[in-house]
């Protein structure tokens, strides 16, 4: 009736058929990770709560910051054609815009990095791959944030 039964009766050499028997069963099909009596270890921290809240709050703030940023850069005062070194230099002369861009950099990077962290947690199956992906993610995030911050604070309009 079915191949499985044919195997059981030992009729015809089906690939892999002789490998397993009642007393020598194949491994069962396991999921990537599972809970046991010992896992997961409790950390009793508030980090996940903080991260969850941060995602919601930073999201709201970012909506204002990013839409404002896009309006100024791309729509108002002649749109994208006006952007040049001078335009940026002019804006960063004001501490207000410095803080705006700094905030946008930090929030966007942290928001994005945390989002990617959850994506890795949710979808990367093997522990090794998780480790590498997260390492890469954190390195890139720290590098970008540091570099951006450095530029904003040490920007010299008279360079050339």
């Amino acid at each position: 009736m079915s191949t499985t039964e044919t195997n059981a009766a030992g009729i015809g050499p089906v690939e892999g058929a002789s490998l397993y028997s009642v007393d020598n069963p194949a491994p069962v099909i396991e999921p990537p990770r599972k809970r046991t009596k010992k896992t997961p270890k409790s950390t009793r921290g508030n980090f996940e709560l903080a991260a969850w809240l941060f995602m919601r709050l930073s999201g709201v703030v970012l909506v204002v910051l990013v839409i404002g940023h896009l309006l100024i850069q791309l729509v108002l005062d002649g749109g994208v054609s006006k952007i040049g070194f001078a335009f940026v230099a002019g804006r960063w002369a004001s501490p207000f815009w410095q803080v705006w861009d700094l905030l946008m950099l930090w929030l966007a990077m942290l928001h994005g990095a945390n989002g990617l962290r959850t994506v890795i947690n949710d979808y990367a199956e093997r522990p090794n791959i998780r480790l590498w992906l997260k390492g890469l993610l954190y390195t890139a995030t720290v590098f970008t944030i540091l570099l951006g911050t450095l530029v904003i604070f040490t920007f010299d309009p008279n360079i050339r």
Partner: protein
Amino acid sequence: MATPVLDKSDAAGSPEPGFADSPYITVTMRIRRFNPEISADAVWEDFQLEIDPKERVLDALHKIKWDLDGTLTFRRSCAHGICGSDAMRINGKNRLACKTLIKDINPEKPITVEAIKGLTVLKDLVVDMEPFFQAYRDVMPFLITKDTNEPTRERLQSAEDRERFDDTTKCILCAACTSSCPVFWNDGQYFGPAAIVNAHRFIFDSRDEAGEQRLEILNDRDGVWRCRTTFNCTDACPRGIEVTKAIAEVKRALITRRY
């Protein structure tokens, strides 16, 4: 994979040939088979049978097991959606086989049946439920009170306080919700919707005094914050529990500390 096609006369409960207004229809059940005593691979196997469309998927599985292939293995007990034994993935959605009627899932096409996801498959539709119950046990699913001497009569509770957690008392621990959660599929260390639902049932019970402890347990790395609100769990629940809402209420209680 050979697809067995059976004579009508072979099939269970088949009507007399030429029976004009027979309620029976022919359906194909496509079942994900796995038997480690035979092969390391899971395979799809088709069975054709005559069945009244008002019957349950469980009835179809029984017809196969009793009349066609006795090796088909699945759990079942009460057969009317109370015991929670027969959660399985039917046409890609988690349901109880005993609460799903053939006519409600388009019998024109083959009906696929496979084990629920995220748990170890042991044989055919049978999975290892131990990790699922471990998560349940980890949320302290029992009434905890701090009073030193028990009251002689019952503890009083207003009808409104009783109503507050009514929805989550309906849970039958069938694992349909937890095994429908994409987060759980990949990371079984997540508590999962069912455990959170059962924590909710006590956190919001006015008689219970360990809500704080349970909240702390669910505040952890594999707790409620892993929920992505995909609503798969609410869709899957055969008892109609608003699972995602219950999880959201636990999240809110964690932030406001009011429950």
